[in-house]
């Protein structure tokens, strides 16, 4: 049986990276002190490089996260110093809610106006002006003429009816006038 040959540098690197875990190759490393020393050196160097990269990655992540949160915080808590800027910031944030609310309010108001029972404006103000022929003569419900006497006369023509309330002052009052 011949002595196992010395592993090549390529085989050393592959084994150190875990890409080549052949038991025969491992046996060859065990039997070769130089190869074992090289393999240990490569593995240590690899550990160093990986450790450094991981630490760098951590630093990068922290910085990135910090910047990201600063941006998010800046957007969420706007630098609202005055009342107007706070109001406008509120509207910026809830614009869609405000529009939705306004549209809902309009719809509710329209429904309320349409469905509300009771008289309409026209009905409240409208007094029917009937043709003269169908009108009743004016009725005097009560009449007081202090300091004078009164006579009520009804007039009618084809334009309209009229009640004439003729007040004649008493003689003493007439003298005053």
């Amino acid at each position: 049986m011949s002595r196992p040959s010395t592993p090549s540098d390529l085989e050393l690197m592959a084994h150190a990276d875990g890409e080549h875990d052949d038991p025969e190759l491992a046996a060859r490393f065990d039997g070769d002190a130089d190869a074992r020393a090289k393999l240990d050196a490569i593995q240590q160097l690899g550990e160093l490089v990986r450790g450094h990269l991981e630490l760098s990655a951590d630093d990068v992540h922290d910085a990135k996260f910090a910047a990201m949160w600063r941006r998010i915080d800046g957007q969420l808590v706007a630098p609202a110093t005055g009342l107007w800027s706070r109001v406008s910031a509120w509207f910026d944030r809830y614009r869609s809610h405000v529009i939705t609310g306004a549209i809902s309010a309009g719809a509710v108001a329209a429904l309320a106006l349409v469905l509300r029972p009771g008289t309409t404006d026209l009905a409240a103000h409208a007094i029917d002006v009937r043709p003269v022929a169908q009108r009743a003569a004016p009725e005097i419900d009560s009449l007081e003429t202090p300091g004078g006497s009164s006579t009520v006369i009804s007039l009618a023509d084809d334009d309209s009816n009229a009640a004439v309330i003729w007040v004649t002052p008493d003689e003493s009052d007439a003298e005053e006038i």
Partner: protein
Amino acid sequence: MIERAVHRPATDRVRRPRRSLAVLALAIAAALAAPRLGRADVTAECDFIEFSATSGDKPAIDGELQQLEKKLKKPPFSTWNQFKLLARSHKALAKKKPEPISLKNGSATATLVEIVDKSKVRLTVTMDDAKGKQVANNTATVEAGDYVIYVHSLPRNEGHLLSVSCK
């Protein structure tokens, strides 16, 4: 850092405005409906014409009294032949709310008592002379378009008249 995002009260920010917007919607609806209730008050549109009457050589009736002209040529008004407009006003009378009527001679108030059968108005009118003495206090029910004419007979065959008509 990541926990901060998880615990952020994002849901509060969304829910609170929705609740307040619902209240806002109701408030707007109420505000829009409220004036309508106010406008539904009963009113009557009334014209008040104050004019004087005398006798003269030539008949003369003011142009603005044209709507009364036919009546003014008949008794009892035919004792006069000159009629002159003194003041004219148009008022929207609200139910049971006395409305002052400005006159050139004296003063008057008018109150809409009610609307009867949709075609008549029941009105209370008070009329005072220039000295503040009450001439007449009258409640009458009149068809829309018809008149109540108050005549205060004065010395020297003169008259002070107030015509009221509502629609």
